[in-house]
Each structure stands twice: as structure tokens, then as C-alpha cells.
């Protein structure tokens, strides 16, 4: 087993066009419609970060319509 495989996997916080957040493994191609936030770490670390930054649960479209 090469050393690379023994390293922990890293994940990133990702966001879609409606400002929904999620997490994604760095070694997989980022799905269409999502962009990486400058936050990475273990999966749990990323989820913890989302807890802090995802304040408004409303999709962007609704946020705009309501203002």
C-alpha cells in the first residue's frame, strides 16, 4: 500500500448556486453546480464549519424575493 493511501482523506466545504452548503471529498471531481469554499479538513471539521457559516437556510432565490 503506498503512503498516499494511508493519508487521511481531505474534504472541502462546497456551496451551490442557491447558497446551500455541503461537503465533498477532495479526491473526487466536484459535481456540476457546486463550488468550493476555502475551507477544508476532515469531513467532520467541514460540517462543523458549515454549522457556523450557513446562517440563512433559505435558498438564494427566496432570500432575494423576500427582500
Amino acid at each position, binding site marked *: *500500500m*503506498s503512503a498516499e*493511501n494511508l493519508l487521511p482523506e481531505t474534504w472541502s466545504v*462546497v456551496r451551490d448556486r442557491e447558497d446551500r452548503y*455541503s461537503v465533498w471529498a477532495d479526491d473526487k471531481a466536484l*459535481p456540476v453546480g457546486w463550488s468550493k469554499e476555502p475551507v477544508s479538513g476532515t469531513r467532520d471539521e467541514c460540517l462543523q464549519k458549515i454549522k457556523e457559516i450557513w446562517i440563512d437556510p*433559505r435558498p438564494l432565490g427566496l432570500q432575494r*424575493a423576500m427582500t
Partner: protein
Amino acid sequence: MNKLFAPNQANDTVVVDDVSRSASDSFPLSLAQKRIWSLEQIGNSTVFPLQVLTLRWHSTVTLDQLQHALAQLAKRHSALRTRFCRFAGGRIEQFSDVSEVPPVETLGSDSNPLTAVEAEEHEAEFISRPFDLLSGVSSRCQLIVTAQGTLNSTIVLHPIVCDDAALSILQRDLIALINNEALAPVIDDNLLHGAREEEWLETNDFTTALAHWRNLIGEEYTATTLPTRFNAIGYAGAKRQHRPFQLDSTLWTSVKLYAKQHELKADLVLSAAFAVLLARYSGNYSLQHGALLSNRDADGRGQIVCRVEQILPLKLELTSRARVLDVCRAVDSAIVTGTRNLVPFERLVQEIQTHEEREQDAIVKSLFEFRESRIQSGLAPGSSFTLAPRSDIELALVVSPNESGGLDALFDYAEDIYEPGLIERASIHFGRILAQAIGGTDIRIKDIQFIAKDELDILSAPYEDTGVNDDRPVHEHIAAHAARTPDKTAIIYADEVWSHDRLDQSANRLAHRLVKLGVGADISVAIAVKRSPEAIVGILATLKAGGAYIPVEPDHPTTRNHHILHDGGVKVILTNSWLLDRIPDGLDAIILELDKLDLSQEPHTAPDVQVHKDQLAYIMYTSGSTGLPKGVAVEHGPLTHHMQNTSRVYGMSELSRELPFLPFSSDGGHERWMNPLMEGGSIILPDQPLWTPEETLTAMRKHGANNASIPTTYLQQLAEWADLTDSAPPMRLYSFGGEGLAQQTFDLLSKALKSEWLINGYGPTETIMTPMVWKVRAGQKFEGTYAPIGRAVGNRRVYVLDPDLNPCPIGVTGELYIAGEGMARGYIGKPDVTADRFIPDPFSKEGGRLYRSGDLTRWREDGTVEFVGRVDHQVKLRGYRIELGEIEAGLLQQEGVGEALVVLRDDEATKQKMLVAYVVPKQGRELEIADIHSALERALPAYMVPSAIVSLTSMPINPNSKLDRFALPAPTPLKRTIIEPQNAMEAEVLDIWQQILNISPISVEDNFFAIGGNSLGAIRILSALRQRQPQNRTTIADLFNNPTIRSFAKVIEAGNDQAGSEVIVLRASGTKPMLYCFPGLLVSTREYVKLVDYLGADQPATGFICYSLSEQKQIGASVDEIIESYVDYIRSHSKGQPCYFLGWSWGGLLAYEAARRLGDEIDLRLITMVDVCDLGTEFAIGSTPRFKPGERDQLHQMVQEWLSQTAMRAEWDRLLGVMDSDTYDQFLRFVGDEKDELPTDGPDISSREHTFWILIDNALIFRRHQLQPHNVPIHSWAADDSLNRGLNLIDWRRYSPRANPAEIISGTNHLHVIGSQAFHSRLAHRLNEAL
């Protein structure tokens, strides 16, 4: 087990070689050869097929040349002229004579050649001819001159002398001989392999190697293989299926290039690809499978024709992140280490599979074999060879380079265990793995895509639905009908009938009030009233006001409701005045008491509120497996689209009148009232949380329902009631959901509920109501534990994915993910949990999310999805991975069990994890828990049998109408009632039982066997009884037939008339012919109990007590004398009647002799022979033991000394007294060959010495016995382990023209085969056939 268990066949039709052949020129067989010999003995020629070499020669090669070359080939390779001889008692050895040549058959000539068709026919016939190994050499040749100008040569060798690599050697050498090329000299030590192996097995090297494997494989192992058929356990027929396929030359060339770049052997890449296939298909990256080693790296072996191939178990610890290159290296290193510690596989299996629990579990279930390409130079085209693999492993993949530069491959597998469709796909995926693996150095297992995009599109696709959705929210759809058909019935509720108009106007008035109170977008309103038209008004009003409703069931626990009201941030609570005390204080919310509310001043028209598609429609609270309920927030856009799609799939219309039985605390409950109302139809709303099945069916009939939606947890009782009373009204559609729907329940409701359509709905709240359905016509059947959950509905897709988010192939278990528009916004106030469960959708072209369901599923052949269990429902107990659903399925198969649930919980007393099963009886049935328990013991491996089974009147249900696992009661330890003895005899027997079985207290009603008694215990009890009451004549059979203290005491008291039986009634009643079970040596008839249970209530069975345990036993009895009492009994009970015999071990001989004696007096339908072996060589008449100088006297001295010490002196003297001098010599030889010292622990029945005595006695009885032909139907079975040991199983075809070749029962041995379920199922099949 001992080879002495069965008699010899000294006088059979087979020639016996003995004194004529001296010891020096014949040699023992290797273990692998012994196994093949055993298979040959029992008539099995499929496990190891004949080895065939067919070559086509150009016309430049002459017949003479070929004949000459063949003669030289035979001179060079002794395998072509190996012969076998049988010594007295069955020992087989091999020898060869250098002057011999294999027979050569020549067809056609230059002047009279054969046509292609003729040549083919002759070849096929030649190839299929069997060998008689005892009367000729083990190979034969055929030469054919064809009209095409070619010369065809075919060499057929018996697999006992040849493996595939050996064929390559033959081909190479034959070509060289034809071309007059010089061949390097060989030292052909082929015949010595067996002897060398025998010696090696005695060395420390062997002990070390064995320790390596014990350490590597351990006791708790899981052999990796591809997913098996549903219900494959218990069947393992010998039938094989083949799936040939090819890989093209481009791919093979690239593989070779890749291998070269990485300094690997190319076949290693193929082997690694197989490992990847297994890992991805099984989901288990700790692999245990096998590779077939040609095993020719040792000096000189590469040149010798013989059988030396070996199955090498491989253990690989991989992860899905491992690179394919790493897998190649891991396989390489496993092969290197394994080869260094190579132990004959036949022996390894014996050493590892020692636990009865593990018996059925092979060490290797999947095997990879690579065959090197053969030298082809100088051959005419068409010299192709077929891949004919050994078939002793469940599943094998053989790959070999072909003439066109590509690869020929073949999956060879057990038909009963694997689905052909799955294997076909696996073969395609094998090619895809290879093609992708070599794409770069860093390709990891997880990077490989098995499923092509177009395939995934089809698998993930929703129900076809060509309708177009509009974007109006649900409440506007409903309101539209109030305008169109104002007076039409919308809701029937007890005595109330609500029209569409009334419903709409009431909702509008309340909506105006809510708007005034500040309800609007993303503001929540609690609906805290019970399920009623009022609740629906509240919900519609909330939606009309732009708010989000939260259903709160007033009846639910206050802690739960308080949490919801706080967590959901409700602004307004709609409730009734009498429910006020259920509303917590301190909420920042306005409470409206609907019963006191005056809305007469509010307008009856809809408020002017625009609803954005992203605005929340409702928040539904779900009970997670842990912690507080979570609020799932659902938006209007996805909701209305979901409802419209569902309408079409369900076929809803203005004619629909539905009885929605699902509670309002589950989202499915809301779907089922919204749907009819949106279409202008109506609902019959139950006025109570639960109706009895009778009330439900009455309401349907009375109000003319055509649809009903029912929680799965309620279905069983409803269907049972309908079935019992035949009271179900005809319906168009039933839909149900909430739990896995067991096959049995589905079949019952399909029959009893008289519905045209059935829909099994599935869906987590997070993906809105019922995102998946399986819609079928009533009467549809399915294979599987649970009903399929079908396909996605509407604008969704579903995926079965592995933990790396790679789509699983059809039939492979993975987690279900749901994608598309139809999903919730997320969890209220839980962004991290939302981000965790709703993840980016890698399959979407537009962008979107995937919801991770936590449910294990698999795609079925038709693309629908099957529910397998919860991700967290797979548990590990004592190292075993257990799918709880499997145990539940086992419980549901028992008579009377309506519902079943199994959990892993802590035993409060021992703090140990244990499996506990909960069962609910079908209506009007009572469950006999002990019976269910013993049925499970028969059906499941021991580690899967629950420690406790608890009967409940109903399963606890949580507020979402799902099973509430946390409300299940802990099992209470069983309290035994101790019944005291009533009289002196019972007290006497009790005293003896307690003393012998060493347990206390014992109840006089306890079953002897249930409290741990066995045959030896029974005999000790009898002898203790005899000491106290010398006149007593009860026998072991009396105890078996009367296994409680109370019943046994009665037999003793009844005295001699009743007692003294040698017969055990295993099952007295049943309409099928009586099955007479003949005992093996030293086993009592109790061993047949499992089997008799399996055969069922209609199969009567009788067992005979083993002669060695019998009272009438005498020294030197003949077989005829032994069977006397059996024959008398059978004659008096079955004269002229149909019956079956079953003989296990030497009982087979007794059964055969009894059949011969009874002849036409009975109508014997079938004798079933179970692992009946021949007597070992030691005591066979005519076998002369060999002693080293002085050894005989030494042994004699040793025996005399031993006799002076043993307490069984008198018995031994009697036995030795009947031996003649030859026999005594054989006895001495036997003693000399024993590893252990002569035992002196007799005469106790369980002592080694007693057993030894019985064995010798038995040998003396049977050495004189000769089997005679008799025409009787016989079917026989052999235990795999007996074959591995090379035991001489009797081929009954030699004695009866109506005997079949034996079937093999894999993974079991001589002693345990009788309890093996695989054997039971096949026995049942054969008995039925013979009926």
C-alpha cells in the same frame, strides 16, 4: 472418524492386486489424487473433468511421424502410462511400466479420410469415454486423417495424473518431437509426489506452514465471493453454469504493457482485477479468496506431466482507496508468502474447518485461475482448447490468452448459488476494471466505474410520466375544485360531510385571520388538533396565508410536542380549548382555539397572497434513531410537483374516494388526503387514530371507497381479517408504506384485499412523502424478503451507491440515494446535519443534491429497487457480520408468525451483546416460542439464532407510524417450573439423572435431550439403573422414546413386557412411506432428529439402536445376525408397504443387507446412502501386514503389557481370542501405526478404550462380510471432507443397476453430514422423487 467404520469389498467385481505386486514398484497417491480417486469412486466425473489435448497438424506431418512421436512422448512422461492398483481393503497405489504405451486409435487414411463432421463426431465420442483406472493406463490417444488434409491428434488423460499446466508441457513436447527438436532430459519423479507429500506432512515444516494458515485465516473468517441468489443457503446442488467471454487483443496488449512498465507479471494484473471485482461486488475489502497455482516453480516440475496444481487461499486487506497497482503488489506478495507456506488444500480445509458452526462455510468460495498460453508453432489452425476448469469451488474465473491475441475467459459457477444475470454482468465489469485499471499508475479501486452513463440513466430513471406539471401550489389546486364543483363531497368524517366549497371557504376565513396575525413566508403554524376536517382547514389556511404548517398530534408525548413547538419556531398554534393544557408555557406564539374562534367577519374568498416556490409549505418532525425529532422543511415548488406526479402514477381523478389511514404525524398521511382533493375527489377521514380492521372495511364499503392508504404496520391484521371474513370491498388501489413489507404479508393482502392495483410506497420524509413506489397488479409475485420499493416518482432519480458514491451493479447491495427536485430544503436549525445528509449530486448535469437515505438496497434485474435493510441494521456479533433482516425473514417463515423484528441489545445480566427477536402472532394464533426457536436453529447458522424470542401482542409504533425500537421490552429470563417427583421410582430416576448429567434441579417433565443429555449419558443412566435394580430390562431405546423422568419411570415400572425395545420412534405419524434410519457405528439415532424435523410432519421415521450400544451385543456376530431384529421389525410393520431406508456410515451396509434380505416383502422405494465408506486396508482379508525386523515381537510385547494393566482385560481377551494369527498380526500392525498410546481409560462408554474396542470388534465383524449384487434403487451422498481425506467411499453402482453416482455435500464431514441442511434439502428432494 476412522477408516474402520465400514466393511471391505474384498470380493467385489474389482480386481484386487496384492501379493502379486511387491512393495517397491507402486507408490501412494497424493492427497489431491486421493480426492480425485474418491470422486471417481462415487461416479463423479464433473468436478475434475478429463484433460484433453486436441491438436491439428499440417499435411506435412505423417501418421507414422505422429505415432512415433506419441510413443516417445509416453516414454518421456510416465503419466501417460500410469496404472493404479487396489490393495485389499481399498488402498490405492500407482505404478508405471516404462515399456507400456497408451492405446492409440487411428481413424481414416490418406486414401480414405474422414469428413470434418465425422472427425468431430469421433473426437467428441473419444473425449467423452470414461476411464477404468484399474484395468488400463490413464491416457489414450486418437489420430484422425481428415479430408481437409490435416491430421488431428487427441490425447485424453485422467485428471488424476494431469492438470492444465501438464497439458501445456505435453503440447510443447509433442510439437518438439514432431519437429525433431532435442528435448532436455527430465527426471520424471511423478510417481513419488504422494510419498514425498506423506513424508512432508510429518515434518516440522508442515507444522510451521499450517500455523501460518491458522494464524492468517483464523477461526472467524468470511470467504469473499459475488452476491448469491435470494435464499441460496441450504441448497448447493452440484450443477454448474458457464459464462464464457472474451477480452480483445488491444486490451490484453495494454495490460501486458502496463504489467511490463510496473515490472509485474501480466496475469497478476488479471488476478488483481478479479480481487477488485470481488471487493466492489461484496462491499468487503478484507478479501479471502483463492488463486489456482500451477505450482511448477519447484525444480524440474516445469517439465513433468503430473497433477500438482494447488488452490492457494489469498487474504488481502485492501481499502477502496488502494491503487490497482497496490492490489497487484498485494496479490503478488500474498502468492509469494502463500507459496512459501503451501499446504495441500485438501489438508488445509480439514485443519481449518474444525468447528461445527463453520462447517457450511468454505475457506475459498471464489477462485482465480490463469492459464499460460501454449506453444502453437507448427500447428494447423483450429487447435483451440476449451477452458474446462475444476469445479470444486463455488465460483471460478479462468482466463487464458487465445490465438487471436486476446483473452478467453470463463466464469464457472454453482447454478443454485449465483444468478446467471449477475455473473454475466460481472464478466462485463471484469473487462471494464481491466480497461480502466491500466489507464494510469494512480488509478484506485474507487476510481473504477462499473456502470456506464447510459445504463445508469436507465437504472435511476423515474416512472415514466409524460404529464406536465403546473407551478400552482397544492392549496390552489384544491381551491380550484371549490369553484368548479362547489357542492361535490370533499370530506366524509363520521356523520359530517364537507363539500369542496365549505372546505375552501372555511380555510379562506381562517387564512385571513392568520395573515392578520403575521403569518407569511417561512413562518410556521402548529396544527395541534387531532386528524379531522378542522385540521385540514387549518393546514389549508396556513398554506393560503403563505405560512408553513407543522402537524402536532395532541395525543403524542408532551415532551415530544414541546420540543416541536420550540424547535419549529411556531408563530401561531391552532388547537382546541380542551387541549390547551397540552401547550407549554413560555412560547412566543399566538394560540387560536378553533372551537371558540369567530371567523364570521373574515372574508370567504382567498387572501391575496403570492407563494414563492422556495417558500416552506410544511415542517415535518421525524424520529431519528437517536436524540430528539428533527424538523424536515419542505418547500412549495417540489411539493406541488411531487403531488401532481403522484396523482398520475396513482391514477387519481375526480372519481377518487380514498380512505387515508396514515396518521397526520407522517408526511405520507398528508399526501394521501391532498392527492384526492387536488383532483376534485374526496376522502373518508377516520374519526379515530385506529380503527379495527372490521371498522375500516365497513367504512370503505359504506362510503364507496375506491382507494385506501394503509400503514404497512397495520396491513397484516387488516389482510388477515379480510381473508378470514371475506369482507374486503372491491377497490381500485391500495397503497401502503412506512416499513419493509414482508413477502408473506404481501401475498396475503394481494389475495385478500380484492384490489386491482397495489402500490408499495417508500420514502424518507427528507425526500417528500413517497418519492418511490412499486406499482403492481394484485397477484404479482416477487422474490426477496421484502417487497420491492420500485422506482422514483416525478422529477427525481434514485441511485444505489457504495460508500465511495459509485453506483452498484444490479444485485449488489448499496445505500439508497435520492436525487432531483423532490427533496426537502433540509433540517430546521441544523445546517451541519443538512450538509451531512444532503450532498452534491455527482450525476446531475444541471447541479443538485443527493439525499443519503441510510437504507440498504439493491437494484433488481428490472431496474426497480429492493429494500435490504437499514445501514445501521447490519450488526457484528462475535466477529460475524449479521444482517438482522435475514433473521427476521427466517422468523416470518414460521407458521403463525405475523410480524418479526430482531435487535442486538445488551443482556442486562451479563452485559454481553445478544440477539433478541420479537414476534407478533397472526390473528387468532398462539406461538410456541420453543418451536420457533428450534426451527430457527435448523434454518440459520448458530451465530444468527436469537438468544431470546419475545412474543408481543403488537409491535410498538412511534408517532410516525414506524416501529419504535426503543420501546421494545427486554426479554425476561425464562423461569423453569420444577415439578417434583411423585413416587419412589421417579425419585430414584431423578437421583440418577442428577448424578449422571451433573445438573440440578431437574423437573420430572424435563426432556432428557433438552437439558443436555446424549447417547453416552443415556447409557450411563441405564448402567447406573442396572446396578440399583439388577432385574430392570429397560434399554436405551426406551429412554429415547420416553425422554422425561416421569415417562421413563413409568416404563421401568411397567416391567419387562413393555421395555426392551431396540427401536426409536423418530416420528410416528405422517402419510408418506416410513423412513427407516440405520445407525452408524457408536452413534445413537438421536443424530437423525434434525433431519426428521426438516422432512416435516408428514414424514414418519423410525430409527434403530446402534448394535454397539445394544443389549443383545455378542462377540463375533455376523452382519446377518445384526440385521435380524431390524428385518423382523420392518417386516412386521411395513410388509407390502412402501418405505425408504437411510443408511449413514456403516449403517449403509446394514440398510443394504436388510433390503436384500427383505426383497419383495416390502415396497422399498429408495435406499439413501450417506457417506458410506469402505473398510481400511488394515483388517482386510488377504492384506498382509509388513513389519520391520523385530517390530512384530516388540508390538506383541507392548500389547501384552498393556493387557496386564487395562481394566477391560476380560473384554479384550474375548476379542483377541476370536482372532486367527493373521488377524492378530493385522491388529499388531494397526496398534503400531497408531500415534497415540494404547488407551487404558475403559470401560466407561465414553472412554477412548471403549471406542477402540468397538472399532476392532466392528472390523472383525465386517472383514468377513461380502457385498452381493442386489437390484434396488439407491441414491448416495458423500461429505466433502471424506473426499479430501481420500476415504474409500462405496460406489453403489457396482452392486445395483439402479444406483446413482453420489452427490457431494460441500463443507461438511462424515460426522456432521447427517445434520447438514444442504444434505436435508437434497434428501427431501430425492425422497419426493421416489414417492
